[in-house]
């Protein structure tokens, strides 16, 4: 593994759901400690891309490399031990398990240095008092916090976050992003899917825009304007 190479590298990814092709030759690279925002319209393939990186979706063609190692065929639990964790779209907590049990399940595949529960509760004071409560009884914001905590329990080097602000009050979204800022400062590499373009551009170093399963734009945030991103988002100006 070369220290200067990208931490996560995706090359020529084709992904299918049955006969439906969701991703067409998607390539992307993510540097260590960098925040990448993945934007695009509904159905553009953002969730599919994150799930493929996490190992929940098999790639028909293409390669996923992590720290220089080809992990395309690795099952999700092996990717988690290597340091890739996903916060899935829609939170997907285990409703009959308590908050603490949800977080503990997130740590089962963790390699060394898993986050102890106390450190997680320090990061998310809003769920610390709810640890013995069943996940199904929490508010949306609390559930999202538990979903992030469950992924952090595996002490990931790369955290993939799929639409964490979906359906939440702006104040709660702000709190969650504060936590992400803290993670970024601590050196965690983040890939976020975010519908709010301003927030995505504020929070990230690199922007990747997907359009109908293809990369329409990939650039450093400092090099793009909002108009350029919106044009890529809607596929305007394509030859």
């Amino acid at each position: 593994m070369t220290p200067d190479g990208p931490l996560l590298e995706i090359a020529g990814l084709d992904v299918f759901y049955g006969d439906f092709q969701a991703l067409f030759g998607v390539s992307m690279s993510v540097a260590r400690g960098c925040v990448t925002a993945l934007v695009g319209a509904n159905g553009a393939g953002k969730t599919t891309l994150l799930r493929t990186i996490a190992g929940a979706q098999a790639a028909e063609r293409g390669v996923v490399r992590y720290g220089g190692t080809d992990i395309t065929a690795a099952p999700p639990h092996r990717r988690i031990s290597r340091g890739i964790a996903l916060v899935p779209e829609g939170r997907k907590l285990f409703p009959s398990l308590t908050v603490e049990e949800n977080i503990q399940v997130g740590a089962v595949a963790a390699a060394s240095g898993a986050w102890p529960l106390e450190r997680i509760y320090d990061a998310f004071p809003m769920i610390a008092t709810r640890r013995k409560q069943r996940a199904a009884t929490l508010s949306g914001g609390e559930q999202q916090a538990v979903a992030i905590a469950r992924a952090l329990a595996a002490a990931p080097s790369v955290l993939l976050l799929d639409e964490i602000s979906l359906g939440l009050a702006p104040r709660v979204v702000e709190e969650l992003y504060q936590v992400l800022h803290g993670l970024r400062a601590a050196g965690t590499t983040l890939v976020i899917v975010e519908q709010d373009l301003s927030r995505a551009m504020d929070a990230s170093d690199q922007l990747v825009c997907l359009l109908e399963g293809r990369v329409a734009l990939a650039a450093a945030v400092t090099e793009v304007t909002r108009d350029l991103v919106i044009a890529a988002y809607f596929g305007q100006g394509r030859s």
Partner: protein
Amino acid sequence: MNWVNAVIQGILLGGQYALIACGLSLAFGVMRIVNLAHGDLAICGAYLGLVLSSALGVPVWVTLPLLLPAAFAAGMALQVLLLGRALRHGVLAPVLVTFGLSAMIENLLQVAATSDPRGLNGGALTLASFTVGSVTVSWLFLAAFLTACAVLSGLQLALSRTSWGRQVRAIADDLDTARLVGVNVAPVFATVAGIAVATAALAGVFIGTIGTFDPLAGTNTLIFAFEAVVIGGIGSLAGTLIGGIALGVTQVVVGEINQAYAVLAVHLLFLAVLVVRPGGLFAAHQAAHEPRRQGALG
């Protein structure tokens, strides 16, 4: 007629039903497999007990340290080699595979052991009993009931307190997400299948010691186990125990009135529960009744 006696005998009988049923309930709750060969596997356990205890010349209880690990290993192998593969081809494939397995086991047992009814050597326990007031309790029935209670509470404890148990419950809630957050599903499935077959074999040993068994006894065993699971509520072990007891008490109390209607009454109770509370009396969680979610698009 002695009603108190009938109820107590019914409760004790119910423990045996619950012991057969708990593996069926666990396998369905976790893997969504209705194992139609579960009763036959219990009878296989009885035959294995017969072979071991006559070969070693000891009561069948002494062979349990050999029999239970063998049954556990057989359950794991069954899951890895057969059911796990069948699960990849939709919900119908495991049903067909276990149906075929049931027919195979019954026929192989007939070839290997003939259709003669057999009984197991339970040692001194078989005929011993004690009397409290007007009620006579067989030590063997009491042992079966207490074993069932111990197995079910042990399982419940393992499910609620251990990391393995959390993974099992996470899978039962949402398989796709459990896999996604790092649960290595295959070994969890294998241990669950191992426990299901080991508890079935243990139940088979009690069936063979209390009464007799033959190669075709598995089907009847399966029906009672299935009814106990449904009455109690799928996915709830406490419910399975209550379901088993409801079956046992109904069978013995109605049998006290007219033996011809005892088994019919059990099936009617099952139908009545299905009509009034289709989720069972103690449905553990809603997730058990929902179809599995497919991968999300987006």
